């Protein structure tokens, strides 16, 4: 009986294990409990100007939508000749195409393995299908009310802005859905234009501004940030100018929106970051750090 365990003596220290019988209740913790408390482990310090720079993606997309709507309005009013738009679009597309390869010296193209012949095929497909379907597009929504079309387009463009891939890692992001919504809106709006040529050119322009332009932007932002800021400013001012030619109130409101997104929101974010208080401790659920993927195979 000399091997009686010394459980009830003072030496029996509490251990944080469940596999040994201890003379403590199950929910017992000792003084060391709060010693492991940690605060704001994963919190990041934001630099104001860095945040402003990142917000330029949002600015760009807002401006794209704005430019698209303005151009459509000009076409609908008959103030803009479709040939001129087509010519400008074609020229800017060619410039953009050349730039796209020049910026990173052809590295991206090598990585994706995409040939110029494939690019040409894609362009041909775009042009042919849009041109072929443009008469259908013209009469597609004849019997549908104009207000319905406007509501649908607004809804789709809002969807495009919401689901666009701004670089955030979130579940809601879906660049496919975003692009499809933009194309749907452009088809809806194009079907309201007076002639089928207008519709064709409008849809082509939508492809350029919603599909091709963001690709170029992404590359610009990655390779030459300075020029990217310049391009963004230029684009924003041109969108504002275009809107101003239609409605001054709209332009003022749009400018306020842009300023609040690019300046106020980053400021607010950095200020709010100071009040952040995340606590971590032994009460957190277990997190497996080790890479267990080798067990899966």
């Amino acid at each position: 009986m000399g091997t009686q365990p010394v459980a009830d003596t003072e030496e029996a220290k509490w251990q944080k294990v469940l596999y040994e019988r201890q003379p403590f209740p199950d929910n017992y913790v000792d003084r060391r409990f709060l010693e492991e408390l940690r605060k704001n482990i994963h919190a990041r310090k934001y630099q104001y100007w860095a945040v402003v720079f990142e917000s330029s993606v949002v600015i760009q997309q807002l401006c794209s939508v704005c430019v698209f709507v303005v151009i459509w309005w000009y076409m609908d009013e008959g103030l803009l000749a479709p040939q001129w738009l087509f010519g400008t679009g074609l020229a800017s597309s060619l410039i953009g195409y050349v730039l796209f390869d020049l910026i990173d010296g052809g590295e991206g193209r090598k990585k994706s393995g995409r040939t110029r012949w494939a690019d040409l095929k894609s362009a041909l497909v775009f042009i042919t299908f849009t041109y072929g379907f443009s008469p259908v597009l013209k009469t597609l929504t004849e019997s549908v009310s104009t207000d319905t079309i406007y509501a649908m387009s607004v809804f789709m463009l809002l969807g495009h802005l919401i689901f666009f891939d701004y670089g955030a890692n979130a579940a809601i992001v879906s660049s496919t859905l975003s692009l499809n919504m933009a194309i749907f809106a452009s088809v809806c709006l194009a079907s309201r234009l007076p002639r089928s040529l207008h519709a064709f050119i409008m849809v082509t322009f939508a492809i350029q501004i919603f599909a091709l332009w963001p690709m170029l932007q992404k590359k610009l932002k990655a390779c030459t940030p300075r020029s990217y800021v310049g391009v963004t400013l230029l684009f924003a001012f041109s969108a504002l100018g275009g809107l101003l030619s239609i409605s001054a109130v709209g332009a003022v409101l749009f400018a306020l929106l842009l300023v609040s997104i690019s300046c106020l929101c980053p400021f607010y974010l950095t200020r709010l970051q100071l009040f952040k208080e995340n606590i971590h401790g032994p009460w957190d659920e277990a997190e497996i750090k080790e890479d267990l993927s080798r067990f899966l195979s």
Partner: protein
Amino acid sequence: MGYKSWGGDMNASAGARMPHEGDKDAARACLRLPGLERCVRGTLGRGRRAARAPLGAGPSRGNAGSRRKWGSCPAARPRQGWGPGAASAVVRSGRPDAVPDPMPTPPPESAARGNSRVPGMVLKAFFPTCCASADSGLLVGRWVPEQTSAVVLAVVHFPFIPIQVKELLARVQQASQVGVAVLGTWCHRRQDAEESLGHFLEGLGAIFSHEPWLQLCRERGSKFWSCKATRRQAPTCPGAPGEDQVMLVFYDQRKVLLSQLHPPVALPDHQAGDAVAGAGGLAAVFDTVARSEELFRSDRFDEGPVRLSHWQSEGVEASILAELAKRASGPICLLLGGLLSLVSAASACRVLQLWPLSFIWSKLSTCEQLRHRLEQLTFVFSTQKAENPTQLMRKANVLVSVLLDVALGLALLSWLHGKDRIGHLAEALVPVADHVAEELQHLLQWLMGAPAGLKMNRALDQVLGRFFLYHLHLWISYIHLMSPFIERILWHVGLSACLGLTVALSILSDIIALLTFHIYCFYVYGARLYCLKICGLSSLWRLFRGKKWNVLRQRVDSCSYDLDQLFIGTLLFTILLFLLPTTALYYLVFTLLRLLVVAVQGLIHVLVDLINSLPLYSLGLRLCRPYRLAAGVKFRVLEHEADRPLRLLMQINPLPFSHVIRTYRLPSCGCHPTHSWGSLCRKLFFGELIYPWRQKGDKRD
């Protein structure tokens, strides 16, 4: 053997009348057994003498009661059981074929040895009502040890020679495969208590050993019955008495013999605790009675060595006609069967099986109906005998259904061909078809405008409308081309009514199908177009969300599309979405028209199916002879007194009509609705073509 009988000869026994038995002939059977010589004096049944007398001669005194029916026996009249305290328990039986084969009944020794009797379990004696007024004698029947019940089949009258009784029983056993044995004695006291008879009956137990030995006795007043079952050997349980409790169950032998026990619909509801026989036991009783038909074959005019009292047929009145029919049925069946095989050989000719023809045959309901009738007739006139009562019933059902069908068809034929009704019909038919086409034209023009204020795509609307209008125009010219010949066609079609009403109805259904062919075409065009749109939209909607259908895993997976794929997909999606309402409207209208036609055809099909599959013979049997189709039995208490055996009357519960129809429904012609309502709506929504009456053969390919 050394048996010697001088009661066997009637002339000899007539003179040997006992002085104290006024109405009975006394007979003496002298049995000389090895080592034991006993002279027994038994009563002699009068049935034999009555049988010997010429038919015209009246029975001797007291003779009238000898073959009394159940109803004339006041004590056993069923109404008497309906007192205030009368209980009526319904016991249904189990499936007859589910009963373990009761054939090899253990001999009395083994019954005694096995002694499966539970102490206190009541012994049930099933006693035919027609034997209630029989003269004293031996009880012949079958002992069912599992149920501790004795099924009495007949009463053997005195005098008899035991070896002859045994021979008879052996013969019956061989013929019917039922273990028939002597179960006990039956004593009918007409006047005074006969002490000597009682002793004599007890003594018989030594000759026909059976365990337990039943001693049934009916008192003079015909009100009181006593029944004892004694066991010669000591029971296995020491505390149990040597005598069992006995319960007498009367049954109508004729009805039980003729009736056919059916599986129950629901579980039996034991109203009282006196559910005498279990499910298997009842089936065993029915089976025993039905199988020992051999025993009942001898009627009252037979002169066998052993005289039995049991149910006997009243005599076959129309026996000559029945006999003639029986003789003639063989050759007639042979002849008709040959004719039918000729017809079926002609229909199976290779030329008729070529591709376009076979396709047409499978689509015309007339051909299906004719084929069905041919199969049925071949089945009826096949020369092989029906194996079981179910098959026999099926043959009868088919025959009655065909006969009724042809009779109705002939009535229709005579109606049609009188007063030039066909001509009127033909004159009315063409304007009706014209009118339908005109109405359709109006409908199409309405659809080409802005129907019900709906916003349709104008261009597509015009294209579709013009297409359908052209089709309608073609149809109208076709009808006009046909109109001179319609009367002649109708006349020939009318002749087909002599093959039966169902054939005429099927032809009517086919004519409707042919006359509304344009509606069918419209429906198919609309459905195909709509289906294309729906399928395209559903897959493009997946593309719109950046998903795709994974065929291998049967699920929707996410997928990264190329830019041009996305663009073209979305373009098509938009176009299809905006064009969908127009197509859907056309589809809806034409589907409604098609459903109308299908409903009319479906009604005709239901009528044809009703005539085809209604088991008319079974229904008639149930109506006129309810006991022939039994669902179970119920028991009525006839007498329940403290120290006397409980007497019950077993009555047959007839099968409910719904159950008769369900059991004996003939297989219909194979055209049946294949869709449930849910799947029909689903198919309509997705624009799949619906053929509500699919033929049997379609499943193969």
